[in-house]
């Protein structure tokens, strides 16, 4: 067996799978190496919620038996991974990143865990998160049972939230991939800050059964990985109809790169101002270079405008109303006061006061937003924006403090695309695209519902022209 070098910790899924199938390394050796690395470095970034050593090694030995008999189960067979600690794994704590739930144990697996288990993926860890996925409106990165998520590129910076652990663990090479969640920005933000490729799937494509609910009509689960191709392979496994998830779209996803449309046929909406005046000054050079790479792929970049709606208030009302109902027992019992972040506690308590008329109005405005995006995507194939306007903020920053402000009168560009995309259930792919102040920055490609193959094709093309997704931080 070959020794496990650093390259393997940062290898893509097909690269690792090829070495397993060629018997250059066993699943048990691979899993043990990742477990040791998680144990050694996970706490350094506050990325680790729970190590699953015994379960992972047992599963790895099963995979080795399958490989020995040439029972191949696909690209994810034998690949270790981590899951955000809001995804239940039977018999082990699922804390939702929050003290009141520190001892919570479910007796069943989330559907995504079962689906990954079926193809021989090996869960090695539960990964940290902002408490209750941050729905109450947290103001500090420290709003977590495991402390502030620290960025592998610079531990004085935040790894982003609420999927802090999945992003940091993938960035630091502690897992080849991870499953996180997004209600509004919880995949896009940490992936952008940590410089990893990630996919927020269309609402309903991936079952949320067994995952903590924050907002039934907004929650999505999705992968953090090394490349767009990895995201496609993972999505193919975890997507699909699930009668246990009332929001399930009843659709499968087949990763079909061979049927991607030629780049020159694609019309992509963007606003130049998002990459210049609306971007933080240190990030502008990286965004300019990234835009050139996108243009060189042959796509048509067309100036466009985000449809005008009060996205923030609409999303906030829906989230608050649904969250208040979901966490009413926590709030009325008084245990909400055990949370780490006082503004989050206040936000949860206040969420019980959303008038029904306001929730209904927000859901009706949401219908208009959906219709408008259906019209928008009859003209464009995707939207291109920065993932975030700049790199990761300080780990001790007040997240409510106003950040960079563009000059007065600056056009809005696609500001609000995170809220808009989540309200309309749109998929988004995050692609690392360079560095600012030695920290990663990223692009975000948003498409119409169920257009994941199109987004992944754009991502693959971009990543064939750049190597930002292969950059790795100094770990240790």
């Amino acid at each position, binding site marked *: 067996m070959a020794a496990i070098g650093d390259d393997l910790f940062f290898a893509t899924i097909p690269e690792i799978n090829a070495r397993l199938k060629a018997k250059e390394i066993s699943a048990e050796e691979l899993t043990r190496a990742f477990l040791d690395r998680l144990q050694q470095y996970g706490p350094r970034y506050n990325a680790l919620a729970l190590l699953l050593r015994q379960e992972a090694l047992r599963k790895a030995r099963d995979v080795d038996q399958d490989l020995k008999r040439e029972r191949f189960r696909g690209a994810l067979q034998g690949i270790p991974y981590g899951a955000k600690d809001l995804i239940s794994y039977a018999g082990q704590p699922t804390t939702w990143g929050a003290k009141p739930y520190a001892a919570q144990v479910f007796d069943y697996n989330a559907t995504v865990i079962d689906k990954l288990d079926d193809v021989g993926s090996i869960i090695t860890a539960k990964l940290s998160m902002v408490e209750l996925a941050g729905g109450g*409106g947290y103001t500090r990165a420290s709003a977590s049972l495991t402390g502030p998520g620290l960025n592998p590129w610079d531990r004085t910076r935040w790894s982003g939230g609420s999927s802090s652990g999945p992003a940091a663990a993938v960035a630091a090479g502690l897992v080849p991939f991870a499953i996180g969640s997004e209600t509004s920005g919880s995949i896009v933000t940490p992936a952008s800050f940590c410089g990893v490729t990630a996919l927020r799937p*269309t*609402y*309903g494509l991936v079952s949320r059964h067994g995952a903590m609910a924050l907002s*039934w*009509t907004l929650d999505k689960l999705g992968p953090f990985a090394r490349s767009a191709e990895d995201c496609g392979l993972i999505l193919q496994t975890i997507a699909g109809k699930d009668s246990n998830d*009332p*929001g399930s*779209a009843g659709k499968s996803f087949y990763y079909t790169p061979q049927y991607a449309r030629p780049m020159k046929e694609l019309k992509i909406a963007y606003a130049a101002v998002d990459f210049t005046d609306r971007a933080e000054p240190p990030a502008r050079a990286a965004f300019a270079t990234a835009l050139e790479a996108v243009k060189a792929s042959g796509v048509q970049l067309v100036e466009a405008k985000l449809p005008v*709606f*009060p996205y*923030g*208030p*609409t999303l*906030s*009302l829906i989230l*608050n109303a649904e969250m208040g109902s979901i966490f009413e027992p926590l709030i009325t019992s008084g245990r909400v006061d055990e949370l780490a972040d*006082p*503004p989050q*506690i*206040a*936000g949860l*308590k*206040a*969420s019980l*006061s*959303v*008038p029904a*008329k*306001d929730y*209904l*109005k*927000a*859901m*009706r*405005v*949401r*219908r*208009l937003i*959906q219709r408008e995006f259906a019209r928008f995507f009859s003209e464009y194939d995707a939207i291109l924006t920065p993932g975030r306007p700049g790199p990761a903020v300080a780990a001790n920053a007040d997240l409510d403090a106003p950040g960079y402000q563009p000059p007065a009168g600056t056009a809005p560009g696609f500001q609000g695309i995170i809220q808009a995309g989540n309200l*309309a*259930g*749109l998929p988004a792919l995050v692609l690392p695209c360079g560095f600012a102040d030695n920290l990663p920055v990223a692009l975000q490609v948003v498409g119409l*519902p*169920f257009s994941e193959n199109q987004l992944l094709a754009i991502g693959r093309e971009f990543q064939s022209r750049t190597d930002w997704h292969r950059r790795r931080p100094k770990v240790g």
Partner: protein
Amino acid sequence: MKLTRRKLAAALLAPAAAAQTPQPAADPVQAARDRIKANGDILAKVDVPMDVEPAFQFKA
């Protein structure tokens, strides 16, 4: 620094003026409720035709 009568008057009036300015709620829960109400007020201004039903069950 010479203190003019105008500056003195302004200095004396400042606390009173500050007291008259609406302050953010000291109670963080009330402040969060105020934000929810403000969001509702914004949406109240959006004209939605009668036949636009709420997005239940939400489907992308």
